[in-house]
């Protein structure tokens, strides 16, 4: 099981969502996809997208005093 990290810090709508989807599409079932970003809306919309696609969000962590976030998804 591989671990894939994508860095979308500084990117705005719709790039974090789109890059997350691209990474999930390339990953194999069981892989861990970690998304690092700063765009506030994507912090809640990436988990919404995962839920719609039946994928499990393992963890959402705020970093840098709330300016950054990190979302872990099991493909």
């Amino acid at each position: 099981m591989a671990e894939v990290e994508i860095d979308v810090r500084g990117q705005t709508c719709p790039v974090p969502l789109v890059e997350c989807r691209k990474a999930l599409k390339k990953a194999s079932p069981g892989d861990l996809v970690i998304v690092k970003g700063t765009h506030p809306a994507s912090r809640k919309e990436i988990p919404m997208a995962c839920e719609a696609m039946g994928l499990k969000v393992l963890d959402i962590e705020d970093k840098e005093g709330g300016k950054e976030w990190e979302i872990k998804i099991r493909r």
Partner: protein
Amino acid sequence: MGEKTVIILHSGDMDKVYSALIIANGALAMGMEASIYFTFWGLMRLKKGELDKGPLSKMNMLGLGRQMIKRRMDKANVASLERLMNDFKELGGKIIACEMTMEIMGLSKEELRTEWIDEWGAVGSYIQEARNANVTLFI
């Protein structure tokens, strides 16, 4: 069959082309299928080198307003239309080009970005796409 978003892009205005591509990419990113039907002024944006050449829908001011918005978009790190189109295609988005518009505007296939276009069609193609769509928009 999965959920689907179908957008008619009638406008060739830069800001509206952004709306269409952002919504379509959002739909794909959230696990839906997505297609965009390019017609009338929208189809002009599929001409080679024209994707980001549309005016602003409001306050264009002979291109001055457009320039200002473009600068602000760059500052906000907004993705280019070319990038959004490439992401749309990579995620499996479908582009339909209106044949009647081509006839009216005297366009040939060679003038268009055919690498993006999946289908050439008319109203029937849109209805067939939209028949089972959950979201359909006219922009």
